[in-house]
């Protein structure tokens, strides 16, 4: 083995990325779903409202798309019965979880890059601080990915799997949803006084969820 071999969680994430890019089963659906929802919003919501509710709508799209896509990282392993292979391998469950989080972050980032300019263009949104807006969107989405990936390991043994995830997830991720919308609206208007508070909330939430998930992952993987 090479002296500079990648950590095991990177191996898990890299494997998932290769599998996804060959099967095109999740990312294409996520991007397509985001674009269709953007189009639907553009015909149902008057453009004049774009500035006041545009950020919320965009965030809503990413929440829906996340519900659709992030659990797949685990559910696919269960459906193909490859999760047993991981469970039997000498890898700590926390590393498997970390690998899945990184893989989901990659999916999220690609979806964001495709959907963000299209959504802004369709709604003709004028964002006073676009870089800050994109940074907050990415931070909020990252927290959402962390929470969804962590919760996904709890639903893999259930029968309804992906259907159960939103029901469990919404109450948990509510603080991230409200904080991100609050911060996004500030970056749209350019009035960023007090923006640190929601950002601190998002970061603290991510760290706490991640810590709890890593510490308890072992119990989620054994029957």
């Amino acid at each position: 083995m090479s002296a500079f071999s990648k950590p095991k969680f990177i191996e898990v994430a890299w494997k998932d990325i290769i599998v996804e890019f060959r099967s095109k089963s999740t990312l294409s659906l996520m991007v397509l779903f985001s674009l269709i929802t953007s189009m639907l919003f553009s015909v149902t919501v008057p453009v004049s409202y774009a500035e006041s509710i545009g950020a919320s709508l965009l965030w809503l799209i990413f929440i829906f798309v996340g519900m659709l896509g992030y659990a797949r990282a685990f559910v696919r392993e269960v459906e193909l019965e490859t999760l047993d292979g991981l469970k039997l391998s000498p890898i700590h469950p926390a590393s498997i979880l970390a690998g899945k989080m990184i893989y989901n972050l990659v999916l999220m980032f690609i979806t964001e890059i495709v959907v963000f300019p299209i959504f802004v263009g369709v709604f003709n949104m004028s964002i006073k601080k676009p870089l800050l807006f994109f940074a907050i969107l990415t931070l909020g989405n990252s927290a959402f990915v962390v929470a969804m990936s962590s919760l996904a390991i709890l639903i893999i043994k259930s029968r309804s799997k992906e259907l159960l995830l939103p029901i469990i997830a919404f109450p948990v991720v509510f603080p991230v949803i409200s904080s991100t919308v609050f911060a996004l609206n500030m970056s749209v208007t350019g009035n960023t006084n007090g923006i640190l508070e929601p950002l601190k909330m998002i970061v603290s939430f991510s760290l706490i969820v991640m810590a709890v998930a890593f510490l308890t992952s072992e119990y989620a993987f054994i029957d």
Partner: protein
Amino acid sequence: MKVIVLENVTKYYSRFKALDGLTFHINKGEKVAILGPNGAGKTTLVKIISGQMRANSGKVEVMGINPAKMSIELRKKIGFVSHNPMLYNELTAYENLKFYSKLYEVDESNINKLLKMVKLYERRHSLVKTFSRGMKQRLAIARALLHDPEILILDEPTSGLDVNGRIELLNYLSKLDKTILLTTHNINEAEKLCDRAIILYGGKIVAECSIHEVEKIYMSKMVSL
């Protein structure tokens, strides 16, 4: 030297008792078959021994370690082959073994040797989804042997294979010089591969015998039960 020790192991699924006070041991280098009809508790037993499941009570030790502790060191000593090959369809045969070699922290150079052993070297760059069931099972054996485990657990490895596939797979397995625990409901497979048999029925051990007596004892036990 005892490598697998079970003492009074019991497992419940809700109120259903899947394993009822199992006690036995397996010595180093022994090849032992766990025989029994469907629902006897064979898969539950191997899941407990391999650390995928916890027993409700009793003592389980593999190489002196409780497998439910999910010890990384123990997992490096166990190879597991089941009816499910645990392979990624969208990866090639080589990529699958490379991925697992990283997890097991073993040298990649072993991969080609194993692929030649299971006669898949020529197809090493083909996606696993293009493989037949028999080819996938052969690749699963290569995966289980990647880290040169001391114990090989085989949970109905020939399930779903045609006659040729079964013969081929058993030939590979019979050449291995390892401690083997095989679960099967097929007496012929047990006779070909193992030296000793433990017969399970309804989660209980109903007989332990040498492989030479297994057919007679198995038939008499199944008739009497």
